[in-house]
C-alpha cells in the first residue's frame, strides 16, 4: 500500500515519517479501554472529584472524537492565522486527509499549490488522492509534476507507474520504472507486473527475481514469479514459488489477525494528534510564535510518550531561551527514546555545563565521542570539561 507524504515531509518544517491512512478492513481496530485522560485539563478535573459531583469518564470513542476535534482545531487555527502560508495550508490538508476527509484535503492541497507551485509534496499528495478516486489521468498529471520538481522522488515515481498500469499504459509504466535511479523491491515487483501484462515473461521473471533480491520475504514477488513460470510452462518451479508464497502469506495473515486483535485505536489517535501538534508547532516557530509552539509541543508530549520530535523541539526551544533545566529534561527524554543521536548527547553536555553539572556533562561528552568518534566537537568538549574537572 502506498502512503501519503508525511506531515514531517512538509517542505519547510523538516523531515520524518507518518504511515498511510488505512481506510480499509485493515484499518478497523479493536480499541482497548484507555485510562489515559484526553488532556491535562482532564487530569486537573479528575483532581476535583471530592469537591464536585463525580463526572462520567468519557468512553474511548468519545475521547477519540474529542482528540480528532482538537487535532482539526489546531490545524484550522494555524491556517486561519497564516492563510497565505503554504505550509500551514498543506498541513491542514494532511489533517483533513488523516480524518478521512480527502475531499477537504484536496482543496487545501490545491490551495497550497496556488501559494507555492513548487511544492513536490502537494503534487504527490494530490496525485495519490486522485489515484484512490479512480481518476488515473489526473493522478498521472500530478505525479508527473512532482517528478519534474524532484526527479528523484521515489514515491511519485512508483505511484506514476501505478497510475499508468491502472490505465493499461504498460509500455509507459515500464519506461518510468526502468529509468528510475533505483527501485525498491515493490518497484521491481510492479515492473514485473507490467512486463507480465505485456507477456514479456523473461523480463517479468527477471524483475520479480530482482524484487526478491531486494527483499527475500516479498510474498507478492513469489506470487508474480509463480504466475510467470506457470505461463512459461515451468510447472514445478511455479509450484515451488507458490509454496513459498503461501508460507509467507500465511505468516503475514497471522500477523495481520494478531495486529487486529491488539489494535488500540485510541492510542493510535493520540499518536496522530501528537504528530499534528508537533508539526503545527514547527510552523508556529518558523513564524515567530514560540509560545504557541511550546504549548502544542507540551500537549504532544503529554499525548504520546514515544514522540521524539516534539521533545526535541521543546529541548531546542528551552535551550535557545536559556531555560536550561527544562532543556536538559527534554534532551534526556530524547536520548532515552533515541540513544544513538550524538548531537543530543552533545547538547545534554552543553546544557549540563550551564547548570554546573560538570560530571554529568563529562558523561554526556564521553557518549558523544563513543557514538561519533570522527566528529571533532565531542573530543573538544570532552577535553574542555576534563580540563575544568582537573582545575
Amino acid at each position: 500500500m502506498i502512503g501519503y507524504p508525511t506531515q514531517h515531509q512538509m517542505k519547510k518544517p523538516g523531515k520524518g515519517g507518518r504511515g498511510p491512512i488505512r481506510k480499509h478492513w485493515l484499518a478497523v481496530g479493536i480499541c482497548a479501554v484507555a485510562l489515559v485522560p484526553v488532556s491535562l485539563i482532564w487530569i486537573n478535573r479528575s483532581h476535583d472529584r471530592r469537591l464536585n459531583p463525580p463526572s462520567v469518564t468519557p468512553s474511548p470513542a468519545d475521547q477519540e472524537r474529542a482528540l480528532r476535534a482538537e487535532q482539526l482545531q489546531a490545524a484550522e487555527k494555524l491556517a486561519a492565522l497564516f492563510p497565505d502560508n503554504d505550509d500551514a495550508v498543506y498541513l491542514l490538508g494532511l489533517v483533513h486527509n488523516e480524518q478521512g476527509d480527502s475531499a477537504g484535503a484536496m482543496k487545501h492541497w490545491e490551495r497550497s499549490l496556488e501559494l507555492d507551485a513548487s511544492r513536490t509534496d502537494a503534487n504527490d499528495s494530490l496525485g495519490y488522492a486522485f489515484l484512490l478516486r479512480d481518476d488515473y489521468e489526473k493522478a498521472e498529471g500530478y505525479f508527473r509534476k512532482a517528478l519534474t520538481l524532484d526527479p528523484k522522488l521515489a514515491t511519485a515515481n512508483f505511484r506514476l507507474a501505478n497510475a499508468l498500469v491502472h490505465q493499461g499504459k504498460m509500455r509507459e509504466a515500464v519506461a518510468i520504472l526502468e529509468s528510475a535511479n533505483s527501485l525498491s523491491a515493490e518497484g521491481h515487483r510492479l515492473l514485473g507486473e507490467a512486463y507480465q501484462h505485456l507477456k514479456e515473461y523473461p523480463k517479468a521473471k527477471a524483475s520479480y527475481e530482482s524484487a526478491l533480491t531486494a527483499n527475500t520475504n516479498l510474498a507478492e514477488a513469489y506470487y508474480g514469479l509463480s504466475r510467470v513460470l506457470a505461463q512459461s510452462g515451468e510447472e514445478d518451479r511455479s509450484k515451488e514459488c507458490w509454496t513459498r508464497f503461501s508460507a509467507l502469506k500465511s505468516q503475514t495473515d497471522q500477523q495481520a489477525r494478531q495486529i487486529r486483535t491488539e489494535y488500540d485505536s485510541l492510542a493510535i489517535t493520540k499518536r496522530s494528534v501528537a504528530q499534528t501538534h508537533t508539526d503545527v508547532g514547527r510552523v508556529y516557530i518558523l513564524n515567530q510564535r514560540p509560545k504557541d509552539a511550546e504549548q502544542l509541543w507540551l500537549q504532544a508530549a503529554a499525548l504520546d510518550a514515544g514522540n521524539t520530535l516534539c521533545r526535541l523541539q521543546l529541548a531546542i526551544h528551552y535551550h535557545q531561551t536559556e531555560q536550561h533545566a527544562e532543556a536538559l529534561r527534554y534532551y534526556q527524554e530524547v536520548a532515552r527514546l533515541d540513544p544513538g543521536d550524538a548531537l543530543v548527547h552533545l547538547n545534554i553536555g552543553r546544557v549540563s555545563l550551564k547548570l554546573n553539572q560538570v560530571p554529568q556533562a563529562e558523561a554526556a561528552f564521553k557518549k558523544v565521542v563513543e557514538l561519533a568518534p570522527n566528529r571533532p566537537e565531542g573530543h573538544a568538549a570532552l577535553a574542555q570539561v576534563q580540563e575544568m574537572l582537573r582545575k
Partner: protein
Amino acid sequence: MRLLVTFSALLWPLLLPGFAALIELRNVTKETGINFVHTDGSAGNRYIVETVASGLALFDYDNDGDVDIYFLNGAPLRGTKAQGTPRNSLWRNEGNWKFTDVTSASGLGDEAYGLGVATADYDNDGDQDVYISNFGPNKLYRNNGDGTFSDVTEKAGVSDGNTKIGAGVAFLDMDGDGDLDIFAAHYVNFTYDNHRSVRFNGHPAYAGPLDFQPSPFTLFRNNGNGTFTDVSSESGVAKSRGAGMGVICADFDNDRDTDIFVGNDKTGNSLFVNDGKGNFKENAGLAGVAYDLAGRAQGSMGVECADVDNDGLLDLFVTTYQQELATLFKNQGKGLFEDVTRLTKAGEGTLRYVKWGVGIVDFDNDASRDLFIACGHLHDNVHLFDSTTVYESPSIVLRNTGGGKFQNVSEQAGDGPAVKRSARGAAFDDLDNDGDIDAVILNSRREPTILRNDSQPAHWLGVRLIGARSNRDGIGARVTVVAGDVSLVDEVRSGRGYQSDYGRRLHFGLGMRDRVERVEIQWPGGRKDVIQEPAIDRLLTVPEGRE
C-alpha cells in the same frame, strides 16, 4: 415480444458505419407494485452478519413462462425490536411489469435470517425447488407443483448446522449421476459471544472478516430419494476454508465436469477442481484466481463467469471491496487464468465503491457480454470517516466493446444505474419476455430496484434445456450457439453472483446476425445434441435427446 413488430426497421441503425449499440436500463421499480423492504435486522450493535445480507433469486416458480422474483430478508438480531415479522418474499410475475405478492400462499415466507439462495429441480419432478442459506440452519423448500412449497430440510438432511453465517449456495451435478447436489459456502465463525466492536476515528464501525475465523464449506450429495449425505470431508471441499461469499459452479477447465469457485472475503478465493466423480482438489492459487495479479487477497463478494471474449472459455469476474478493482480473470485454457482487469478496463469506475451483485449480461444483444456491478458501502456512517466513498452508490455498467474490452457507460445507460442504494444481491433475466435481459437489485434496508432493459433491439436466441438422463434443468450443460462469425458459449447453472440465482434460460445476443447455423448442447451425462438452424428472436426449448 413488445418490440418485434418494428424490429427490422429498428435494426437499420446497426448497419450504419461506426454505430455503437446503446445500453439503456430504466428504473421501473414503482410500476411493478413490489413493496418489499429489506431489513438487515440491525439495532446499532453492528454485528458482522448485517453487512452481508442478502441475495435474491429470479426463477419461474409456477412454470407459467414468466420469471418471478424471490427476495431474501434478514431477521431481528439480538437486541433488535422488530416491527412485524420480517420474512423472505416471493413475487409472481403477472406480465406487463406487474407483480403480485404470493409469499403467504406459496409458503416461501421463511422467517430465518436469509443470506444466499439457489433454485433448481433437485428431485427432477419438473418444477423449481429452493435452497436458502441463513444465519442459522439452512432451508430446503420442495416445490409441490401447485404454486406452494413444503419445508423438507429435516427429511433431506441439509440444514448445515445451526450457527453458521451462510453465504452463496449452488446446485450442481458433481458426479454426473443425473441428480443435483448442493454446495454451501459460509462466511465466518461469528456468534453473539465473539462479536467485536471497532471504531474509525471514534465512530462505530463493523468488524471485518479477519476479525473472525473462516469456516469450512459444505457439500451435500443427492441420494436420489429426497435425502442428501454430507460429503464435505470425503469430497475434499472441507480441506480448505475461507470467508465465503459468492459461489459459482461451471466447467472452468473444459474437462466436462462441474468445478466450484468461491469468492472469499480477504482470505483468497477457492477453486475446487472436480475429477468428474465428485472428488475435488482446491487449486485456486496455481490456477491464478485466488489473488489479484499483485498477489493480494481481495475482499471478494460476488462471482460470475461467462465467455467475455468469445474464445470458447469461461472467464471469471469477481466484485470486491473498496480500493480494489472488480477483477476479471481471463481463462487461458489448460486450467490457467490471468488477471486482465487493467488491460481490458473491466474494473473501470469500480475502485471507490464496495461492490456486490454482478452480472455478465449482453444487455445490448450485440454478441458481446457486458458487465453490471451493484454497489454500496457496508458502513452506513462511512461519510464520517471516509470521503472517498459513499454508503449509497450508483450501479456500474461496463459495455463490452468487443473482444472482452470494456468501456464504462454507467452515466449513459439510462436512469437505472444512477439509482443510489446500498445494494447487495443482483439478478438478471428477461422479466418481460421481450428478448433482452432486465435486472433486479436487492438493496440493504431499502426497497429493491427493478431495471427494464430498453436498449435498442437486436437479434437474440434464448435456450431452455430439459434434461432426461441428465438432471431435469440441464444444470452443467454447455450450450454453443454458432452464428456466422461467432461461437457463443454458456452453461446452465444454479447459484451465482452475490449469494443469488438467476438465468436458468440461457440468453445469447446475436447483433445483426439474422441466422444461427446450429446450437450444440453438451449434456452433463455426456450426450451431445445439435439443433440445426433454429429460428431466432425466440426461446428455444430443447429436451435432451432431441436432434
